[in-house]
C-alpha cells in the first residue's frame, strides 16, 4: 500500500484522470441498472403486489393473461391453498382532460388480489374503481368520471393504491360485475362467468391440480413472458456487462502503460530484494483504489441524477442490485490488472543490474 499510495499522491493528475474515467463508466452502469429496474417495475409492479406463487391460464393463451379466457367453473376445478380470480383487459381511459393507457383488473373484493387503498375509499358500488396512483401524476383525481375506449361504461375513481402498473399501464381495480359490463357491454349477461385466470398462493406449486387445457405457470415464468420484458432486460443487461468489460480494458491498458514505464524501476527494486509479490500487490492496491473511488463517486452521482430526473424517466434504484454491480465492477477492474502483474513477475532483475 505504501508504494501504491505514494505513487498516486505524487502523480495526482494521472490517477485522477483514470479515476474520473472509471467514475463515468460506473455512473453509466448504475444508471442503466436503474433504468433496467425502472422498466421492469413498469411491467411487473402490479404482479409483484399480488405476492402470489403461480397463475393459472389456458394452455392456448401461451402464458398471456390478456389472451387467456376461462370460466368461474374452471376456477372451481382448481385445487390449491389460496386462490383469487382475475379478469383483465386493456383500454384507454379519458377524464375529459387527460387520456391514459390503463389495464382493468376485475377481482373479488374478498380475495387476496384486493389492493390496500392508500388514498380515498374501496369500491363498494357498481362502476367504482381503485386506480393505480401513477394516474394521479397524469392528472387524474378521486371523483373523476372515466370513459373507456371501445365501451359505453362510465367509471368513477373512488380511491388510489400504490405500486399498481401492469405491462406499462396503471391498473384500475374493480369488482367482477363492473368488469363484465365494461368488457362485454351488451353481452355481459352471457359472459358473466368469464375470467382470464386464477392467481394462486401456495407452498407447493407442483401440487396444484387443474382441469384439462389449463396450465399452472410460476409467477417468475409469467413475468418473463410479459411481452418484451425479457428482451428489454437482456438488452440493458448486455449493455451493463459490456460497460463493465470496457472499464476492465481501460484499467488494463492504463496500468499496463504505467507498468511498462516503470519496468527498470521494478527491476532495481527486485534486485534489491523487494519481492514480486510486494510490487504486484502495489499495482492491485492501486487498481482497487481507483476503481473503488470511481464506483463510490459514480454511485453518488447516479443517486443525485436520479433525484433530479423528471418522473417520466422510468429509473428506479435498487440498492442491492447497484451494490452487486459496484462489487463486480471493482473485481473486474482488478482482473484488468492481471496483465501488469504478469509483466512485473516476469521482469528479470538482472536487466537492471547489467553493465
Amino acid at each position, binding site marked *: 500500500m505504501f508504494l501504491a499510495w505514494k505513487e498516486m499522491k505524487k502523480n495526482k493528475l494521472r490517477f485522477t484522470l483514470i479515476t474520473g474515467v472509471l467514475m463515468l463508466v460506473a455512473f453509466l452502469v448504475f444508471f442503466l441498472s436503474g433504468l433496467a429496474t425502472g422498466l421492469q417495475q413498469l411491467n411487473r409492479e402490479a404482479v409483484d403486489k399480488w405476492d402470489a406463487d403461480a397463475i393459472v391460464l389456458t394452455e392456448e393463451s401461451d402464458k398471456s393473461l390478456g389472451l387467456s379466457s376461462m370460466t368461474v367453473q374452471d376456477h372451481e376445478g382448481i385445487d390449491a391453498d389460496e386462490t383469487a380470480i382475475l379478469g383483465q383487459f386493456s383500454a384507454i381511459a379519458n377524464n375529459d382532460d387527460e387520456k391514459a393507457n390503463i389495464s382493468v383488473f376485475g377481482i373479488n373484493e374478498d380475495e387476496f388480489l384486493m389492493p390496500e387503498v392508500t388514498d380515498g375509499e374501496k369500491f363498494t358500488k357498481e362502476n367504482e374503481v381503485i386506480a393505480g396512483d401513477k394516474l394521479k401524476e397524469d392528472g387524474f383525481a378521486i371523483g373523476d368520471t372515466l370513459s373507456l375506449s371501445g365501451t359505453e361504461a362510465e367509471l368513477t375513481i373512488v380511491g388510489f393504491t400504490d405500486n399498481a402498473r401492469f405491462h406499462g399501464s396503471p391498473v384500475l381495480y374493480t369488482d367482477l360485475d363492473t368488469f363484465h359490463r365494461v368488457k362485454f357491454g351488451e353481452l355481459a349477461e352471457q359472459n358473466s362467468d368469464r375470467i382470464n385466470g386464477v392467481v394462486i398462493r401456495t407452498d407447493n406449486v407442483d401440487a396444484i391440480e387443474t382441469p384439462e387445457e389449463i396450465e399452472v405457470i410460476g409467477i417468475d415464468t409469467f413475468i418473463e413472458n410479459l411481452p418484451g420484458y425479457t428482451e428489454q432486460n437482456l438488452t440493458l443487461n448486455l449493455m451493463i456487462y459490456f460497460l463493465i468489460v470496457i472499464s476492465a480494458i481501460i484499467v488494463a491498458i492504463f496500468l499496463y502503460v504505467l507498468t511498462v514505464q516503470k519496468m527498470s524501476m521494478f527491476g532495481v527494486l527486485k534486485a534489491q530484494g523487494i519481492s514480486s509479490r510486494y510490487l504486484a500487490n502495489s499495482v492491485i492496491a492501486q487498481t482497487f483504489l481507483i476503481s473503488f473511488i470511481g464506483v463510490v463517486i459514480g454511485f453518488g452521482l447516479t443517486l443525485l441524477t436520479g433525484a433530479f430526473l423528471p418522473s417520466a424517466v422510468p429509473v428506479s434504484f435498487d440498492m442491492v442490485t447497484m451494490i452487486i454491480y459496484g462489487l463486480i465492477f471493482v473485481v473486474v477492474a482488478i482482473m484488468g490488472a492481471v496483465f501488469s502483474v504478469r509483466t512485473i513477475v516476469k521482469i528479470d532483475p538482472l536487466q537492471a543490474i*547489467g553493465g
Partner: protein
Amino acid sequence: MAILQLDKVKKTYGAGHKKVEALKEIDFTAERGDFIAIIGPSGSGKSTFLTIIGGLLTPTSGEVIINNQTMTAMNEKNRSKLRLNEIGFILQASNLVPFLTVADQLRLLDKVKNNNMTKEQLEGLYKDLEIADLRAKYPADLSGGQRQRVAIAKALYSNPSIILADEPTASLDTNLAFEVTDILKRETKSKNTTTIVVTHDMRLINYFDKVYQMEDGVLAEYKEEVLGNE
C-alpha cells in the same frame, strides 16, 4: 573465515555454437573490511561475476558461500532471503524510485526488511553522505552525485555484509566519481562490510585495497605492468 568465497564458479550462456563461457572456473575470497575493485574490458564477465555473487544468477557449476551459507545449494526462496539480508546493490544513479522522497526511498525498505538501521544510525549515515537536507526531495530535484549518494544510503541502510556496485560512477564526472568512491570506502571501513566495485575508471584504482582484473572470464590479481606493457 572469509565472508565471501567462490569455488570453481563457472558460467556458460547459451548452447551449441552460440555458447559463451562468461566465467571460467573462478576461485575468489573476500574478507570483512575489504574494499575491492574489479576492472576489465567490456564483455569480459564482470557483471556476470557480480550478479552471481548477488544471487541473481546461478552459476553453471561451482559454489558461492556467503557468511558460511552455501548460496548455490539454496532454493530460490532462501536465496532471495539471503539476498535481502546480506547483500546491498548500488546501481546506476537514475535508478531511484521517481515518486518517493529520499526519506521514503529508505522507508520502503522498512516495509520489506527488518534488520535495518536504527534511527540514530540512519541520522549518522545521512550526515556522512551529506544528504540530511535532501530527505524531503524527489530524485528529479537531485544532482547526479546526490542521487548516487542516496543510492549508497539505500544499499547501506539494511546493514548488508556485502555491498556490490556495478559501475556506480559511470554517470558521474571525475570529481563526483572520486567523491562517491571515497564515501563508499569510508562506509566500508567504518561498518566493516565488504564492498566489490566494478569499474571502467582506472583513475579510481588507488582507492582500493585490492584490484582484480577480469579478462575473458578469467579473474586475476591486477598488476600495474600488465596494462603498462600494452
